[in-house]
C-alpha cells in the first residue's frame, strides 16, 4: 500500500492482548512492522486465575504473519515487569496501549468493596503502573505514545457498572494530565472509548450487535493515535462499528454574578436557564480556557449591588438597540399646539411654530426634541424590551427630571436614529433614580439631540449603593423673578398634547385617573415642560427658538388642564435662565430646579448641505429625498474635474484606464494620457488597463469601506491589460473631496459629510492600501528560500487558514528545503486559523499572537508547540520583505503581462514564476559550454550538485570525465552539494556575487568538499 502507516522499529506494549480489542490492536501493530509485547494475564473476565495460553496464541499469530512479538504474562499491577519485558526483548519502548480490563458488574446496592477495589486495581492502578514504568524511557528518548481505554459507561454512566464507570473516567483524567506533562517531551497520550464485541461487552450488549462490533473496527484509530506522525494528544474518541469521532467538553455560556454580591440559592434558581442552557455554548479545551469565564467576571470588578427590582450590574451601561423615527412639520405643529403655542393665531412668532408656509420660515419648537426619543423608549417598553436588571413595573415609575439638549435647531423634517443607554443608577434610599440617555442622530449621522430621562422608581432603593450627586441645582436666586409669564392652560390641552405620542389614559380617561387617585385626568409633565420652555424662549430669545440650547427640569407636582401656569424666570447670564413653574390656583410649585441655556449664535449643521427640500406633505409618504450619498457618477465627474485642474498628470501617468462597473452597468474611460486628460462615459477609446467590478464594490472602495486589494485578491476586482499601470491610479488619492461634493450638488443632491472620505476613495486598487497576507506569504517564500536552515530547526508543516477573506497557505518547513504554497498542502502538523486582519496585525507586530490565542481569535490545532517555532516570522526585516515582494511581484507581472481577467491571487504566485527562474537557462548554456570546452572538466574532476531554491530546481554538473555533462537532479554521489537561491546563482554567473561571500553569509551552503565551491569559474558569463 502506498503511504502505508508503518511502525517499523517501534516497540509497543498492548496489555490485555490475549483476546478481543487487545488482540486486534496487537495484530494490527504487528502487521505494520512494530515489535509487540503481547501482555495478558490469561485470567477470567472477572479477574480470577491466570494462564499463558492467551498471550502465546497471539504471539504465534503475529509471528505467523511475519511480525515480531513476545509474550508477557504479568498482571498490569506489575506494570514495571511488562515494561522490562519490552526492554529485555526489544531494547526499547515507544508505545503503550493500556487495554487490559475486567468486569465486576453489579448494581450499586449489591456492589462489594472487593468489586470496587478489583476494578480500580486492574483498570486504573494497572494503567498507572505500566505507564509510570514506561514514562522515564519516553521522557529520556523524548518520544512516546500512550493510549488509555475508557468506555461510554464512564462518560455517560451505565446501570450496574458503577465501579467500572469510575475507573474508566479516572483513566481519562490521568490521560488529560499526562498529555500536558508529556507534550514538551514528544509524548502523546489519548483515550479511546471503544464499543466492540468482546468478552467484556457480551454481558451488556445483545449478540447481534456484538457481531457487528468487531474489534478490528477499533484498532485503526488506536494505531493512528500511536503513530509518530499523529500530532493529537489529550483527546477522547468514541469508536466502534465503523464509527470514529472525537469528543470535547461543552460548557454553557453560564451566568456570572459580579463579585461582592451575595450569591443566593434564588440567584441560581432564577438563572437556571442560562446556567444549564446551551445557547451560545463554548468548548474550553484546557484549564486556561476554562478559567477565562471566571477571570472575566473577576476582572469586571466588584458588584455595584441592587435588589429584586434593580440589578445595577446588569442594567448600568446597557445599550438599547438602535431605533429610527421620522418627523416633519406636521408633527412639529401638532406638538406646538399641544404645548399651547399659537393660542394667539395672530402672533407672528407663534404662528411660525405651526404654519409651514410662514413667510419668515417655519421654525420647530425646540422641546419637540424630547418627543421622538421618548416615544421610541415607550414603544420599546410596550414591546417588552426593557434593560436587563430593571424589573420594576411602570406603576413604580415617575418621570422625575428631564434634560434635553439640541446641538442645533431641529430641521423641519428629519429621519432620526436613536441610541439609548442606561447612564446612571442612584440609590436614593426609599427609591432609586434611573437615568436613561438617548442620543439622536440625523440622517447624515450627526448628533442632533441629547436627552436624559431621569425616572424615580418608588420603593426600589435601599441596596446600600451610591446616592449620586446630592447638590440642589438651578435654585432660583434670592430675589424676585426677573420676568414672569402667566398662561391659562386649556381645559382640553391634555387631549391635544397626547396626539404627540404619550397615550397614557391617565391624561384622558376620568375613570382611569380616579383609579390612580386623581380627581380628573392630569396634564402630561412634558406638556408643562413645553409650556415653560416656550415662556423662556419668548422672554429671552426674542421668540426665536433657534437659539435654544438645553433645558433641565425637575417635575415637582401635577398640573390639571384648565389651571394657570406661572413661569418665574431669573436671568443668570445672557445664555442661562433659571426658572420655576407654579400653578397659580393652588400656588404649588410644579417644576423646580429648572434652567434653560441658550446659544449666542444659531448653530449651523456641520454638513454644508441643506437637507432635502421640505415638502408640505405628509412625511410618511414623502420619499427620502435622493441623495445624501455620492454615486459612482459623482466620483467620475469629480475625477474629470480633477484632471482638468491638474493637466500635468498626463505626462506623469500616461495611461488610459477603463472602469467597467456592473449592477448597474456603466463604463467609464479615464484618459490620463493625452493632456489635459478626460473622463468620459463609455469605452470606445482603447484602454491600457481595464478594471472590472460592481458598482457597489466600486463605491465601497471609494468610501474606504472596502479594501481595493482585498477586492482584487478576492476576485471581485478584475484587472486586465497592463497590470502595472493600475498602480499609476495612485494619483486619485489626491482627489479633492470638495470636487465630489460639487459633483453631487451639480446633480441636485445634498452632499453630506459622509461623502468627504470619498477622496481616498478612488484610490487605486493595486496601488495599494497596505500589504495583504499574500504579500506576507510572498515575502516568506523568499525568506524560506534564503534560510534553508529553517527546515532543520522547525521540522513542521503549518497550514494558515485565514478568513475574511478565506485563503489558505501552507508553510512547509519540514520537507526538502521548505516551501510556501497557496492552498492546503499535505498533512499539516499545525493549523493556525485566524482572520486576515488579525494575521496582518500579527505579522506586522501590531498584535501579540499570544493575545490572539488567548482571546480565541487565533485557533491552533495539531501540534501546538510547533507554532512556537514560528517566532522567526517576527524577525523578518520589513524593508527586506517589501523588496522581496516587489521583486517577486515584478517577476509575476513580467511573466504574465496579460494576466488578464483571472484574479491574479489564484495564480499561485508562491511557486515562483517560470519567467523569473534563471537556473534552467543557465545550466542549459553550461551544457553547451562543456561540449565546446572539454578542458573545463579536467581541472575539476568531480561532480557538483546544485540544489537551487526560489524556485526549486536541481542539477548536477558532472566533471569527473571530460567533456563533462549537466544532468537534472542532484546526484547523491557528487563531491559537493551546493544549495543556493536562483537569484544568487544568476549573480554568481554574472559575476556580481562572489562564492566566498555567499558562503560566508550562509546563502551558499556547501555539503561535502568545500573546495569545489571555489572552482565555479565555469559558470562565469552564463545566462547573460
Amino acid at each position, binding site marked *: 500500500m502506498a503511504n502505508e502507516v508503518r511502525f517499523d522499529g517501534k516497540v509497543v506494549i498492548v496489555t490485555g492482548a490475549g483476546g478481543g480489542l487487545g488482540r486486534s490492536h496487537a495484530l494490527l501493530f504487528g502487521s505494520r512492522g512494530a515489535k509487540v509485547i503481547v501482555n495478558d494475564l490469561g485470567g477470567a473476565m472477572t479477574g480470577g486465575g491466570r494462564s499463558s495460553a492467551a498471550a502465546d496464541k497471539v504471539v504465534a499469530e503475529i509471528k505467523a504473519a511475519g511480525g515480531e512479538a513476545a509474550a508477557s504474562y504479568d498482571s498490569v499491577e506489575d506494570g514495571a515487569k511488562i515494561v522490562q519485558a519490552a526492554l529485555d526483548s526489544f531494547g526499547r519502548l515507544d508505545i503503550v496501549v493500556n487495554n487490559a480490563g475486567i468486569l465486576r458488574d453489579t448494581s450499586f446496592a449489591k456492589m462489594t468493596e472487593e468489586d470496587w477495589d478489583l476494578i480500580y486495581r486492574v483498570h486504573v492502578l494497572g494503567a498507572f503502573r505500566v505507564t509510570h514504568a514506561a514514562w522515564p524511557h519516553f521522557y529520556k528518548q523524548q518520544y512516546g505514545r500512550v493510549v488509555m481505554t475508557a468506555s461510554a459507561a464512564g462518560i455517560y454512566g451505565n446501570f450496574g457498572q458503577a465501579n467500572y464507570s469510575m475507573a474508566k473516567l479516572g483513566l481519562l483524567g490521568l490521560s488529560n494530565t499526562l498529555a500536558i506533562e508529556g507534550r514538551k517531551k514528544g509524548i502523546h497520550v489519548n483515550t479511546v472509548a471503544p464499543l466492540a464485541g468482546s468478552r467484556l461487552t457480551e454481558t451488556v450488549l445483545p449478540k447481534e450487535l456484538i457481531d457487528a462490533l468487531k474489534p478490528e473496527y477499533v484498532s485503526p484509530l488506536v494505531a493512528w493515535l500511536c503513530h509518530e506522525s499523529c500530532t493529537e494528544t489529550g483527546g477522547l474518541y468514541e469508536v466502534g462499528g465503523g464509527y470514529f469521532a472525537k469528543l470535547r467538553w461543552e460548557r454553557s455560556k453560564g451566568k456570572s454574578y459580579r463579585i461582592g454580591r451575595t450569591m443566593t440559592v434564588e440567584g441560581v434558581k432564577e438563572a437556571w436557564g442560562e446556567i444549564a442552557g446551551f445557547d451560545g455554548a463554548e468548548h474550553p479545551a484546557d484549564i486556561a480556557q476554562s478559567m477565562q469565564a471566571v477571570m472575566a467576571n473577576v476582572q469586571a470588578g466588584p458588584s455595584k449591588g441592587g435588589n429584586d427590582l434593580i440589578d445595577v450590574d446588569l442594567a448600568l451601561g446597557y445599550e438599547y438597540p438602535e431605533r429610527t423615527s421620522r418627523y416633519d412639520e406636521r408633527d412639529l405643529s401638532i406638538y406646538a399646539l399641544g404645548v399651547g403655542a399659537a393660542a394667539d393665531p395672530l402672533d407672528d412668532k407663534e404662528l411660525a411654530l405651526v404654519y409651514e408656509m410662514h413667510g419668515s420660515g417655519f421654525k420647530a419648537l425646540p422641546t419637540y426634541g424630547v418627543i421622538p426619543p421618548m416615544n421610541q423608549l415607550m414603544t420599546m417598553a410596550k414591546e417588552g424590551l426593557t434593560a436587563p436588571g430593571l424589573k420594576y413595573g411602570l406603576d413604580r415609575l415617575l418621570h422625575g427630571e428631564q434634560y434635553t439638549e439640541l446641538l442645533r435647531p431641529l430641521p423641519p423634517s428629519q429621519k432620526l436614529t436613536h441610541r439609548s443607554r442606561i447612564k446612571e443608577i442612584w440609590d436614593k434610599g426609599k427609591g432609586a433614580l434611573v437615568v436613561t440617555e438617548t442620543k439622536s442622530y440625523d440622517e447624515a449621522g450627526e448628533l442632533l439631540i441629547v436627552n436624559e430621562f431621569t425616572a424615580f422608581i418608588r420603593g426600589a432603593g435601599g441596596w446600600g449603593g451610591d446616592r449620586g450627586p446630592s447638590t440642589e441645582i438651578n435654585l432660583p436666586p434670592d430675589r424676585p423673578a426677573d420676568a414672569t409669564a402667566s398662561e391659562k392652560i386649556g381645559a382640553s390641552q391634555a387631549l391635544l398634547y397626547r396626539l404627540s405620542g404619550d397615550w397614557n389614559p391617565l391624561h384622558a380617561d376620568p375613570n382611569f385617573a380616579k383609579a390612580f387617585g386623581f380627581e380628573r385626568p392630569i396634564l402630561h409633565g412634558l406638556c408643562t415642560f413645553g409650556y415653560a420652555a416656550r415662556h423662556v424662549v419668548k422672554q429671552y430669545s426674542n421668540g426665536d427658538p433657534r437659539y435654544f440650547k438645553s433645558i433641565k427640569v425637575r417635575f415637582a407636582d401635577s398640573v390639571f388642564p384648565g389651571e394657570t401656569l406661572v413661569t418665574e424666570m431669573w436671568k443668570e447670564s445672557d445664555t442661562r435662565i433659571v426658572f420655576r413653574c407654579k400653578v397659580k390656583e393652588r400656588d404649588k410649585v410644579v417644576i423646580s430646579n429648572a434652567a434653560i441655556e441658550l446659544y449666542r449664535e444659531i448653530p449651523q449643521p456641520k454638513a454644508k448641505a441643506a437637507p432635502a427640500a421640505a415638502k408640505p406633505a405628509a412625511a410618511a409618504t414623502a420619499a427620502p429625498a435622493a441623495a445624501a450619498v455620492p454615486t459612482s457618477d459623482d466620483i467620475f465627474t469629480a475625477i474629470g474635474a480633477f484632471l482638468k485642474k491638474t493637466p500635468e498628470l498626463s505626462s506623469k501617468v500616461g495611461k488610459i484606464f477603463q472602469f467597467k462597473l456592473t449592477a448597474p452597468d456603466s463604463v467609464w474611460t479615464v484618459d490620463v494620457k493625452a493632456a489635459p486628460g478626460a473622463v468620459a462615459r463609455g469605452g470606445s477609446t482603447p484602454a491600457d488597463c481595464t478594471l472590472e467590478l460592481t458598482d457597489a464594490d466600486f463605491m465601497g472602495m471609494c468610501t474606504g469601506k472596502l479594501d481595493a486589494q482585498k477586492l482584487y485578491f478576492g476576485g471581485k476586482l478584475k484587472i486586465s491589460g497592463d497590470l502595472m499601470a493600475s498602480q499609476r491610479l495612485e494619483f486619485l488619492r489626491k482627489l479633492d473631496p470638495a470636487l465630489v461634493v460639487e459633483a453631487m450638488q451639480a446633480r441636485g443632491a445634498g452632499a453630506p459629510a459622509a461623502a468627504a472620505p470619498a477622496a481616498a476613495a478612488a484610490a487605486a486598487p493595486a496601488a495599494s492600501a497596505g500589504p495583504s497576507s499574500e504579500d506576507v506569504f510572498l515575502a516568506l517564500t523568499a525568506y524560506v528560500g534564503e534560510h534553508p*536552515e529553517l527546515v532543520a530547526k522547525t521540522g513542521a508543516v503549518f497550514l494558515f487558514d485565514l478568513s475574511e477573506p478565506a485563503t489558505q497557505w501552507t508553510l512547509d518547513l519540514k520537507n526538502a528545503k521548505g516551501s510556501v504554497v497557496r492552498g492546503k498542502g499535505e498533512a499539516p502538523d499545525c493549523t493556525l486559523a485566524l482572520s486576515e486582519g488579525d494575521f496582518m496585525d500579527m505579522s506586522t507586530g501590531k498584535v501579540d499572537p499570544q493575545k490572539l490565542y488567548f482571546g480565541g481569535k487565533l485557533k491552533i490545532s495539531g501540534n501546538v508547540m510547533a507554532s512556537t517555532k514560528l517566532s522567526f516570522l517576527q524577525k523578518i526585516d520589513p524593508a527586506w520583505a517589501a523588496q522581496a515582494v516587489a521583486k517577486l511581484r515584478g517577476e509575476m507581472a513580467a511573466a504574465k503581462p496579460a494576466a488578464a481577467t483571472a484574479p491574479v491571487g489564484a495564480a499561485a504566485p508562491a511557486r515562483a514564476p517560470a519567467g523569473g527562474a534563471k537556473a534552467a537557462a543557465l545550466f542549459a548554456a553550461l551544457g553547451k559550454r562543456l561540449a565546446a570546452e572539454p578542458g573545463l572538466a579536467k581541472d575539476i574532476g568531480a561532480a557538483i550538485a546544485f540544489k537551487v531554491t526560489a524556485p526549486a530546481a536541481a542539477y548536477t554538473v558532472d566533471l569527473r570525465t571530460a567533456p563533462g555533462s549537466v544532468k537534472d537532479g542532484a546526484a547523491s554521489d557528487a563531491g559537493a552539494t551546493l544549495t543556493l537561491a536562483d537569484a544568487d546563482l544568476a549573480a554568481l554567473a554574472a559575476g556580481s556575487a562572489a562564492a566566498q561571500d555567499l558562503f560566508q553569509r550562509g546563502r551558499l551552503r556547501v555539503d561535502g568538499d568545500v573546495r569545489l565551491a571555489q572552482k565555479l569559474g565555469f559558470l562565469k558569463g552564463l545566462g547573460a
Partner: protein
Amino acid sequence: MGRKVNVLGVGMVKFQKPGASEEYNVMASKAARAALEDAGIAYDAVEQAYAGYVFGDSTCGQRAIYEVGLTGIPVFNVNNNCATGSTALLLGRQAVEGGLAECVLVVGFEQMEKGALGSKYTDRTNPMDQHAAVMSKVQGFNEAPPAAQFFGGAGREYRWRWGTKKETFAKISEKARKHAKNNPYALFTDPLTVEEIMAAPEVFDPLTRYQCCPPTCGAAAAILCSDDFAKKHGASRPVYIAAQAMTTDTPATFKADSMIKAIGYDMAANAAKKAYDKAGLGPKDVQVIELHDCFTANELLTYEALGLCGEGEAEKFIWSGDNTYGGKFVTNPSGGLLSKGHPLGATGLAQCAELVWQLRGTAGARQVAGAKVALQHNLGLGGACVVTVYRRD
C-alpha cells in the same frame, strides 16, 4: 619577578542545566568549601577573595562567600564575559605574586537562564557592537544565537580557507563526549557519534546543536597561596602557576574583515606566546590542555592559536587523534565546555581544577599519563583571553 604562586586547593560542584541547579550562592559556597578542604586550610586563613560571575546584580560574590565565613576580608567581584573565571584567577595570582597577600580564595559561579546568550541591557551601547559590526559586514546577521553566528562564521571562514570537512568539526564534539563520560562533574556524559552530531538540528552552518556548549549553572573555586604559606600548611609539591598572560583585542579584530580575527584568534595566539615565553616552555612541553571549546569551531581554531599544530593542520591533527588519549596532547579531558558545560563565571576555575587534578595524578579514569605541564585557555568575546601554564615539580 614576583613570587611563585601555588594552587593549594581546588573544588567544584557538578554542573547542571538551568533550572536544575541550586542557587548561585549555594553552588559557590559549596565549591569554595571544597577548595578549602582540598587545601586543608580554614577560611579564616584567606586574606582576600575574588568572585567571578557575569549574570546577577552587584556583590553576588559577597553574598556567596558570606556563606563560608564573615571575616571581613576584601571581596572583589569580577566580570569579564566568558573569561571571567580566569580573570578572577589572574587577579588573585597577582595579589599573591606581588606579595600583597599570602592566601586568596578565587571562586567563579554562574546561575544561567535557559536559551542562548543574549543582551540584558538594551538601552545603551552594546559592548560587542564593534564585533557585531564586523560580522554584519562580513556575513550579515540573522536570527541564530549571536555567539553561534560569531564562532560558526569563523568556522565557515576556516573551512573555505582550508577546505575542511564538516565532519571534522563534529569529530571534536564526539571526543568531548567521550572525555566527559569519565567526569562526574560534567553535564553531558552520554557518548555521541559523528553521525548523530551531524544529524542534530543545525544552529548555524556548520555548527549543529551538539557543537554548541549549553547554558549551564555551576561553580568552581581555587585557593592560591605563596610558597611560605604552602610550607606552613604542610603542602608537598603543590601545583603552581608557571606563567599566566591575559590579552584583549587588537586592531586586527575590527579591521581585518575576518570572522577568525573577530572571535579573538589573535588574542589567544598572543596570550599563548606570552605565557610560553614567560614559562620558558613551548607547546611540545605540554601534555594536557583545557581550552575554550564554546563551539567546536573555536576548539579547532584554538589548536592552531596555541601552537598545538601548524596553521591549516587542525583537520589532520583531529583525525590523527592528537587531541585525545594516545595522541600528542589531550585537550579538554574534562569534556570541555561542550560536554562539561559552560557556566560563564565558573568555567575558568573549573578548567583550573581539572588541570590541578591532572598534574596531581588524581584525575581517575580521565588521568593523562605523565602530565607534568598543563595549559589553560579561557576566552571571552568582548574581549579577553587568559592563558595559564601550570606545573608540578
